[in-house]
Each structure stands twice: as structure tokens, then as C-alpha cells.
């Protein structure tokens, strides 16, 4: 095993800031991107449903 303890692991031999600064931002981006896409999808679905309801109401009125 390379690491003697958890603290040793997080210190990364003195390069902790740089290693975790790289991996952390990448992890964050890879969580945010799919989350934003889910939002975009549900927004698209909502506006489609609104449009269809509006059409339905128009049809009922005439």
C-alpha cells in the first residue's frame, strides 16, 4: 500500500491542493452537467405539455 493513513492520502505528498483541485473540479463538472441536462429535459417536457393543454382548450372552446 502506498498510503499509511487517510491523512497521508489526502495530503498527496504535499500536492494535495493541486491533485484535489483538479479531481474535485472535474467531479463537480461531471455531476453538474447531467443535472443541468435533467433540468433542461423536464423544462422541455413541461412546455410541451402546456402547449398541448392549450391546444386542447382551444379545441373545446370551438
Amino acid at each position, binding site marked *: 500500500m502506498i498510503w499509511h493513513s487517510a491523512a497521508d492520502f489526502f495530503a*498527496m505528498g*504535499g500536492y494535495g491542493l493541486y*491533485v484535489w483541485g483538479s479531481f474535485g473540479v*472535474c467531479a463537480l463538472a461531471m455531476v453538474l*452537467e447531467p443535472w443541468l441536462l435533467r433540468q433542461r429535459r423536464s423544462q*422541455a417536457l413541461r412546455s410541451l405539455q402546456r402547449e398541448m393543454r392549450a391546444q386542447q382548450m382551444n379545441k373545446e372552446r370551438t
Partner: protein
Amino acid sequence: MSYRLVNWFKLASPQKFYPVAGKMIPLFWLLAAAFGVAGLWLGFFVAPTDATQGEGYRIIFIHVPTSWMSMFIYLVMAAWAGLGLALNARLSGMMAQALAPTGALMAFLSLWTGAFWGKPMWGAWWVWDARLTSELILFFLYLGFMALQSAIDDPRRADKAGAIVVLVGVVNVPVIYFSVKWWNTLHQGASISINKAPSMAMTMLWGMLLMALCLWMYSIAVALMRVRAIMLERESHTDWVKQLAEVKA
């Protein structure tokens, strides 16, 4: 042969592609997770400490894969763009549009992790070096494509204009790749090349390749998610979208 050709063209309509993409997304997420766990395990717990860079070199396990993906996604995007210009298929433009933000993200992450690697090793977050500068240009090309597409109201015209920009920008990809050979740069040479044995330990190499596979699968999953959203937005007037179970619900 002709049978296969027909099937591919069928799949090229948004209507047919949408449900297939939906089924494939979980599969690619699963693959991304599996490759990611394996790659991180190798990268952080198996690969030995580097002789000259200590533990700081472990940034390689995310830096090289993001850099590869930023270039690879651009090439895939260019292929879709070219196909779109040649065949005038709706799916091509949508795929190019879906890939661009993920490619831009990969280019950004490549620059970001590069800065975090450059600071401790070179003593600078940024230098105007051939490799770094050409990667920055790649990032701007992605942003330019996205800005141009969103500036044109008619999506089909936006696809065409965007495709031309993407195809012109392809020239930058080999420039990035060979920049470390063509110019004297601060950046180290290629980690892996086809014609010589890799200059690193096998565990490091495998860690890097597994992380690259992880990001590849991630990019496919995210691009498919985005292309589905784009289809709902762009094809909102069509019957097939109105007939979708998730829209009716």
C-alpha cells in the same frame, strides 16, 4: 449490405433515434461508473509514486483523458457536421449541437487540470506555450460554434453555418497533437505514441486508459441526454413528439 444501410438511415431520423438513445443512456452511465472506479483505484492506490514529480503526477489520470476527449469530441463533432452538410440530415446537426458543450467542458477541464499541474511543476498556472495556447484555441472554437448556433434563429441554417465553422476549426486538432513535437515547449511530450513503447509504468498507463474510457462513456451518455432534450425542443411541433408517453403523461 443494402439491408444494413437502410437500417442506418432509418435510425438517422430523430423519431427513431430518440427511444434508442433513451435505452442506451443507462448502459453508458454504468460503463462510465465501472471504468471510473477501476481507473481511480489504479490511479490512486496501485500506481507507484513518480520518481521526479512525487504524488503530484497523479493529475495525469484526469488531465490526459480530458485532453484526449476534448480533441476526440471535436473530431466526432466535425464528422457529424460534415455528414450534415453532405446529407442534410436533421440528426447530424442535432448531434453536433449536443456534443459541443461537453467538448467545451473537456477542453476547459484539460486547461484547468493543466494549470493545477503546471503550478507545482513549472511554477506557473499558465504560460503561452504552443500546447497550452492551441488547446485554449480549441476551447474558443467550441464556444464560437455554440455562440454562432444560438445566434441564428432558424435551426437548419444554424446547423449549416455551425458545420462550416467546425470543419474549418478541425485544422487545430493536429496542431494541438503535434505541438509538442513541432515547437520547443515547456509541456512534456506525448505520454503514449503509436510507434514507441510507452515511457511509463504499466499500472500508470492502465489507470490513464481506464479513466479515458470512463470519460468517453460519460461523454456519450451526456451527449445522448442532450440530443434528446434538443429533439424535444426542436421537434416540438411534430406528431411523434406529441405522441411520446412522457409528453402525454
